[in-house]
């Protein structure tokens, strides 16, 4: 059953240095507040997993929290590059970053296998691509009925998955809606689950398109209003496109980045 905890306690209790951590949210409901708390608590040596690393992982990578990244598309959506990600990969700053790189279809199916507790998933993917040559988690299987060779991808089972949702009730049942992405799969694939929410309510009234994670699949719920900013929570906040655009300049320069993180993330801990 999920415990309702402060974000600080939830991160301290559930996210440890060295963990494989998935923080999902496909442009929507990205758990920035939790990432900032991880940065403040100096969690490090993480294997970060996420289909679209986005600004959230640019920040974690730039702060040196990650030793490895498992992903499928690492850009600032609609803006350009993730400069901290590029700097880590190209120049090893602030530390080298190992990569395991997939397509979206491959990553999505890796989570599906993880949520289903199967060791792998099958897809018609990667054909002719150079991607399999760089990944140990892409292989092939042969259909026992037709003889067709298909791609196999290894399951992802994070130590901890962190997501942001619109609401939870006081028992810790979680509800999210809008673009639901791959969050259900990422949560169900993990050993531990931390959910930050916009609001804690008495009753989760049914909502169109909502996904519910029962309390018994979640370890901790933490209240974090606007906790997806600059991403958004449909029905609560809107995407701060201006922030995403301004991130390009902030993140291009190592010092400007460190200063921004210091002023906007670390100072909260002081």
């Amino acid at each position, binding site marked *: 059953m999920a415990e309702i905890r402060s974000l600080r306690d939830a991160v301290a209790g559930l996210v440890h240095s060295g963990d494989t951590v998935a923080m999902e949210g496909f442009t929507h409901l990205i758990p920035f507040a939790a990432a900032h708390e991880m940065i403040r608590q100096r969690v490090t040596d993480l294997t970060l997993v996420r289909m679209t690393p986005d600004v959230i992982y640019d920040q974690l990578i730039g702060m040196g929290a990650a030793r490895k990244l498992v992903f499928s598309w690492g850009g600032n959506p609609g803006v350009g590059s993730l400069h901290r990600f590029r700097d880590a*990969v190209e120049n090893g700053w602030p530390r080298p970053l190992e990569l395991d790189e997939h397509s979206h279809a491959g990553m999505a199916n890796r989570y*599906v296998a993880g949520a289903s507790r199967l060791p792998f998933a099958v897809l018609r993917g990667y054909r002719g691509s150079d991607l399999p040559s760089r990944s140990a988690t892409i292989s092939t299987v042969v259909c026992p009925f037709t003889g067709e060779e298909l791609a196999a991808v290894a399951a992802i089972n994070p130590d901890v998955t962190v997501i942001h949702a619109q609401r939870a009730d006081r028992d810790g049942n979680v509800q999210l809606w809008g673009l639901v992405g791959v969050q259900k799969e990422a949560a169900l694939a993990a050993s531990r689950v931390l959910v930050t929410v916009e609001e804690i309510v008495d009753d989760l009234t049914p909502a169109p398109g909502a996904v519910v994670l029962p309390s018994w699949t979640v370890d901790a719920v933490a209240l974090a209003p606007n906790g997806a900013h600059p991403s*958004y929570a449909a029905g609560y906040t809107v995407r701060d496109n201006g922030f995403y655009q301004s991130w390009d300049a902030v993140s291009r320069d190592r010092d400007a980045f460190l200063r921004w993180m210091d002023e906007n993330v670390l100072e909260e801990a002081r």
Partner: protein
Amino acid sequence: MTWTSDELMTVNAARALAGARTCFVGIGLPSAAANLARRTIEPGLVLIYESGTLGSKPSRLPLSIGDGELADTADAVVSVPEIFNYWLQAGRIDVGFLGAAQVDRYANVNTTVIDRGPGRPEGRLPGAGGAPEIAASCGKVLLVLRHSPRNLVGELDFVTTVGHGDGPGSRARLGLPGAGPVAVITDLGIMRPDPETAELTLTDVHPGTTAGQAVAATGWPLAVAGDLRVTEPPTEAELTALRRLAQGAPDA
């Protein structure tokens, strides 16, 4: 009216969607073109985004593929695994519309890394995203990118996404179900695979552009079609719709 070369690119990319029923929309330039098509040549076009929306009808151009309006205006929103497995892989989508960093003469695509020469680290690109399976599974594929020798290269540094592989028959040998790229639309013109060789050939230039400019901006010896055409100038309706979109203005 006057226009920019980027506007020519987007207008022609939108026109290439004429007759399509469903389009899997890549991030960036394809999204602008697909949304323009819905406002001009193909109002019934069903837009499908990898963020899980089926039938999005945004009134403004989304910055990212996950803007709330894409979900709010969709016929249905599904999970990301579902959009890739039940909708894309299943071969339900007519056209896949992709941007690219590097494209070679067989319309193969690199969006992974750039070789910057000996002693220098690889330049990092965003990665594959949905492209490998979009290009594999859609009925056909459109590519849109700016024309330059850096973008249109003799040899890819990395094959992220297969277009026509190493030429005729390549897709069939690889078991790729869709027809693959049928047009590469740039700010200078349009290249299409030659029916015999599968090699990209310049078939159209935009008004005010010469074949020579396109050849010079291509990293391999670009073949030019004998019956090279000039694309129709943008109409006032197209430009008005595009500029409204680009300004983030809602539908009229």
